[in-house]
């Protein structure tokens, strides 16, 4: 991003550090003691309480999701490695009420010596924290906000994103639709700002990958409760009438809060598939995914959490594992040293996606393959074959270096 010389110097230091730590003599079979010189690397997770999310489907559990369970899995994985390297990771969790600002709590944690933060917060709050003087010497991971603005112009030196952006998700889906040649899209957009934002991402993806919007409609019916007697009759009528538009290949729905998208499948006027936020959906993580060693990862999570891993958990796990992997290689928990390593060419993380995940050095966004899922099975993984890029195929998803004002 900036200061080339300093980054190079740090890299050299990292390299030297790596050479020094190639072997770690140790320790016992079952009771593994941590050496006295072990370093402690504390992390804090910040989130804001929100309305309880009740999924439409009775089959989906209601989870009060903060990403904490995913972060804790990352801590356990890091500490297994830490047994051999003398590093101990721990996480503390801080949730503020919806109307409260996390600034004071953030300052408190900083005063306690915390320099590594995971944030599951709205974009504006993330920027507010990132711009605090205390945050200057800290490293922040955005695990939840998908806003493209954080990746195109509102970038911060101390802020990395393990959550995919809306543009990445839309591009991942659009590449698959291009492969299918399902090029005529019928766009249905919900009433919230984030639905508009995802619709914008889909439009951008259409222009990039040859999609054509044949129709766009706003869904204005009020969201209902999931337990309604005879609710199906109403949905059957509403959707049938609503979708009487000229012919298209796939209906793409933008409904991030999952208020109505689930009602569309099998009820459209024409027999056409549904994709977008529901149906054929691009996801960073899903229970339907078990490729590339994900089986053990899913099992491990389910055993300890009693539920399946969410996308937020996965983003939190990647953030904690990035810290762990960085700390192992550079033998330090210092945010500046870690950042330099994570953004550098040496960093690679295996994240059960078939190729390494890395960070884009222009905006701190994690590069990752994205899953194309149906509710019950994995359909595909994007980027799709044939979409080429001069640097990394993963950069065909989301905003590329030349498309952002971040450097």
């Amino acid at each position: 991003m900036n200061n080339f010389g300093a980054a190079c110097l740090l890299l050299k230091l990292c390299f030297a550090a790596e050479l020094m730590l190639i072997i770690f003599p140790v320790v016992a079979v079952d009771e593994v003691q941590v050496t006295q010189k072990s370093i402690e690397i504390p992390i804090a997770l910040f989130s804001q309480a929100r309305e309880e999310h009740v999924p439409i489907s009775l089959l989906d559990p209601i989870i009060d999701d903060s990403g904490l369970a995913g972060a804790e899995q990352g801590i356990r994985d890091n500490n297994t490695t830490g047994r051999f390297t003398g590093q101990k990771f721990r996480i503390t969790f801080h949730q503020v009420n919806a109307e409260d600002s996390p600034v004071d709590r953030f300052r408190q944690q900083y005063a306690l010596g915390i320099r590594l933060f995971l944030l599951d917060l709205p974009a504006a709050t993330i920027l507010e924290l990132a711009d605090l003087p205390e945050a200057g010497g800290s490293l922040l991971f955005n695990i939840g906000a998908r806003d493209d603005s954080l990746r195109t112009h509102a970038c911060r030196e101390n802020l990395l994103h393990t959550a995919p952006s809306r543009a990445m998700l839309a591009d991942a889906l659009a590449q698959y639709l291009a492969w299918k040649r399902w090029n005529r899209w019928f766009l249905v957009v919900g009433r919230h700002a984030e639905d508009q934002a995802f619709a914008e991402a889909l439009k951008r993806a259409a222009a990039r990958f040859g999609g054509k919007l044949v129709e766009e409609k706003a869904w204005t019916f009020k969201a209902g409760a999931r337990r309604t007697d005879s609710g199906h009759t109403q949905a059957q009528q509403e959707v049938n009438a609503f979708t009487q538009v000229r012919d298209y290949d796939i209906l793409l729905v933008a409904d991030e809060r999952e208020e109505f998208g689930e009602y569309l499948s099998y009820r459209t006027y024409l027999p056409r598939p549904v994709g977008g936020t529901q149906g054929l959906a691009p996801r960073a993580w899903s229970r339907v995914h078990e490729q590339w060693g994900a089986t053990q990862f899913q099992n491990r999570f389910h055993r300890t959490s009693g539920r399946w891993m969410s996308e937020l958990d996965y983003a939190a796990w990647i953030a904690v594992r990035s810290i762990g992997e960085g700390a192992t290689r550079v033998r330090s928990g210092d945010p500046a040293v870690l950042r330099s390593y994570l953004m550098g060419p040496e960093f690679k993380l295996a994240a059960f996606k078939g190729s390494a995940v890395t960070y884009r050095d222009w905006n701190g966004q994690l590069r990752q393959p994205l899953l194309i899922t149906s509710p019950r099975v994995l359909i595909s993984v994007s980027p799709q074959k044939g979409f080429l890029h001069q640097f990394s195929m993963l950069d065909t998803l989301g905003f590329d270096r030349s498309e952002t004002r971040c450097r």
Partner: protein
Amino acid sequence: MNTLRLSSRKGIRMLVSAILLMASASVHAYTVYVSSEKDNTITVVDGDTLELKRTVDVGARPRGIALSKDNKVLYVCTSDADHIEVLDLDTLKVIHTLPSGPDPELLVLGPEGRYIYAANEDDNMVTVIDVEKRSKVAEILVGVEPEGMGVSPDGKWLVNTSETTNMAHFINLENLQVEYNVLVDQRPRVAQFTPDGSQVWVSSEIGGTVSVIDVASKQIIRKIGFAIPGIRSEAIQPVGIRMSEDGSRAFVALGPAARVAVVDSGTLEVEKYLLVGQRVWNLDLSPNGKRMFTTNGVSNDMSVIDLERLKVIKSIPVGQLPWGVVVRP
């Protein structure tokens, strides 16, 4: 005219090599066994004629396989069945099972053949199993998602790799203690000792490298990288490693790159890349050292490499998602 002459010459050469092959076949009969994780089978192939002999149903998700020291039985890690099955190679029937701990993926035998060391991918453990008593003897705590297993020829060291911890753990087989941990590149898969026991080679699937570790000093001497024109570097994912009998060459399976790299063990440079099937994972040598067999997961076949000419001579369809391969003399 010209083409005719060429093709007839080629024909003669093929005939000669076919005769030579048949001659060698009668001397060294051997059998190749392939585990296929998706259709739960072991495929039996005649190593000389390359004919498919039998397909045997085994337990759920067979992956790592190994021969007993007397070559009478095949140990099969049936991962989803959470045990090791013992397949009698005369009758091709599973005669009993061994307790392996959950989700066994890969196993190796100690030099004396009495103990099996199995990696429990789901449990951060290596399980030691006594094949005579058919019981678990010990469990050794290692890193996250243990996978690769290699025993040094002198039986002193067991090297286990852990995929998420990114280490090669050196376990002293006398006291079953983890004594050294060597940090390698991302997602280490296979650990293979050189025949003289001086080095252990560890493949890193996501890192795209093979770390050559000096056993005496536990230091990485070299990280071997791979570059194939026209193949994206992310698609180069080293997994299986096999040394030639004399140790002069190493063969590295490169996964989605659909290539086997031939590495000069002296210079540690890649000599050649051989095109095989898709997602090539594991490999094994014929007893005479003349052929190499590879399992190709995505194309559901096994490639046969002629090691004298360094050419792929045949692909044989086997089960679905072939995983492990061993050759029985």
